[in-house]
């Protein structure tokens, strides 16, 4: 049996063990298993390796976490290589939180309103003399 043929048999017998073999090919595989020594050997090996949970359990149990500094290292590498151009250009809104911008905007509006209110020439204050003066004749009658 060549390696390619053996690979095919391994794949077929893996499916047979997993119960995923199509029903129409199952009788042919079982007939081969009854008569072919290679089929029997490979099935025996597959059963052993599939049942061998010890190796897999040890390998799974010892997962290796990334070093604590990984995030910092990878970000630094990117910044170094790209001289800071790797990431997209940040807008002003990305750098300063929206809530802070809102507070500054409200304070600014309040300040403008106060200045206008306290100003003699501001339009927010109602000048009573001006309203009364509207009935005063500016140009005396001859």
């Amino acid at each position: 049996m060549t390696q390619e043929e053996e690979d095919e048999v391994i794949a077929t017998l893996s499916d047979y063990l997993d119960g995923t073999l199509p029903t129409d090919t199952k009788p042919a595989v079982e007939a081969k298993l009854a008569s072919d020594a290679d089929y029997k050997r490979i099935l025996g090996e597959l059963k052993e390796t599939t049942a061998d949970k010890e190796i897999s359990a040890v390998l799974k149990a010892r997962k290796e976490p990334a070093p604590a500094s990984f995030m910092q290292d990878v970000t630094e590498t990117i910044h170094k290589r790209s001289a800071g151009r790797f990431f997209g250009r940040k807008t002003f809104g990305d750098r300063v939180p929206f809530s802070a911008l809102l507070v500054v905007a409200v304070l600014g509006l309040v300040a403008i309103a106060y200045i206008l209110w306290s100003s003699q020439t501001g339009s927010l204050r109602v000048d009573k003399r001006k309203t009364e003066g509207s009935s005063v004749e500016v140009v005396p009658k001859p």
Partner: protein
Amino acid sequence: MSELEQSLLRRLRERDERAFRELVEQHRDRVYNICYRMMGSRTEAEDVAQEVFIAVFKTIESFREESKFSTWLYRVSVNHCKNRIKYLARRHDRDRDELDENSAGVNGAVNGMPVRIAQPDRALEGIQMEELLREAVNSLDEEHRTVVVLRDIEDLSIEEICEITDLPDGTVKSRLHRARLALRKKLQKHGMS
């Protein structure tokens, strides 16, 4: 693909640094673990894992969303590891050739010395199974190591491994079987398993 994943991808395509940090945060342990098991060295694993994330961020446009994002990420990881293994093997061969040339020219007595320094600890009793397994996995060739790492360590399905390695189902199964047999043989040599 979940809405969160879609949103993360969109932000990655916009080159958002915060999205990149989220990506690294979510996948760094798994990517690092794959690299560590493939490379067999923490230093190499860290370097390769960094390169994986940088490559993913650079080439995110080429991800066509035909598979799960994680599958694509692991594929990039495995390919980077394979490239690195090939590079290291080439460098090792070159260094060995140079060493052979130098030792032949300097003194004939040096030729009798082994190039690799023996590691006496390895043969001692009391070596943990984990250490033996790590060595056994490292001794597998790259093709067999890949399927063992993805299936027996990362617990990925055969379908996912087929997508990652771009191999047919039957080849993955046969490689997995051969790799497991080889691991068993190596452990049995040490009286384990």
